[in-house]
């Protein structure tokens, strides 16, 4: 379902801004049709996130293998959700010899601006088998509400 929020449009119609808007729209189109199923939008900062929107909530997911719940910190300030944490490497005895070493350890920090206002009191987060799922309920002001139509 495609819908356009009024807020997305500039208040003053600048003709160049209109071109920019068209360009962005075309970029988005080509992204959704050409890259479907591969690269998607490339994340530059760890961890890569997926964000889904349901009618009453936002769902943010991330794959965080090896990160323990106590080493993960989530915070929200206004519409900015911050994920911070670290992955520790298990200390191995000095006698071991490595054949392959691909798993990295270290810290990460990522802040993301949520596209919709959320209710900061109703946020749930769980870390299950290395997958983080954050559920953020939309602020009541932006939750769709049925409007009764009455006949007169």
């Amino acid at each position, binding site marked *: 379902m495609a819908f356009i929020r009024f807020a997305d449009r500039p208040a003053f119609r600048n003709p160049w801004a209109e071109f920019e808007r068209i360009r962005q729209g075309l970029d988005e189109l080509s992204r959704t049709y050409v890259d479907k199923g591969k690269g998607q939008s490339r994340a530059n900062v760890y961890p890569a996130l997926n*964000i889904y929107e349901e009618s009453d909530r936002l769902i943010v997911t991330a794959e965080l293998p090896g990160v323990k719940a106590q080493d993960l910190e989530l915070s929200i300030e206004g519409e900015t959700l911050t994920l911070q944490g670290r992955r520790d490497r298990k200390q191995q005895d000095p006698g071991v010899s490595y054949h392959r070493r691909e798993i990295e350890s270290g810290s990460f920090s990522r802040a993301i601006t949520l596209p919709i206002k959320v209710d900061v009191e109703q946020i749930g987060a769980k870390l299950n088998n290395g997958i983080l799922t954050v559920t953020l309920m939309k602020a009541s002001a932006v939750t769709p509400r049925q409007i009764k139509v009455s006949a007169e």
Partner: protein
Amino acid sequence: MTEQELKIQERKAAHSGGETTKNEAYFAPQVDIFETDTDVIVIADMPGVTTDGVDLSLEDNVLTIQGHRVLAKQPGRVLLEEYESGHYLRRFTVAETIDQDKIDASLADGVLRVRLPKTGPAQPKRIEVKLG
């Protein structure tokens, strides 16, 4: 000492030889492999896999690690998609002789750890040569 920042690692698709009928992606998990005096240890990142989804086999010195996960249908509308979920598959040729019966594996926080115990080195057998 400043701590290293984690980076996004590129995901490589894994092929099991032949395409699968289901349109589900397989990825090669990142691994650490190291050897101690007694064991070969394989550690693989498999977020989302539960213990019943792990499939391990060692045949003809080829270790196959498979992780199947329940790929839930994405909820609602996608606002941002930076990663793709899939199953995991990776194969290794193990040079050491492994005691097949004593392999054990554990899974914690989406990380699989497989211990492959080496069998003791074959004792060189000394053959006495007698004067005939």
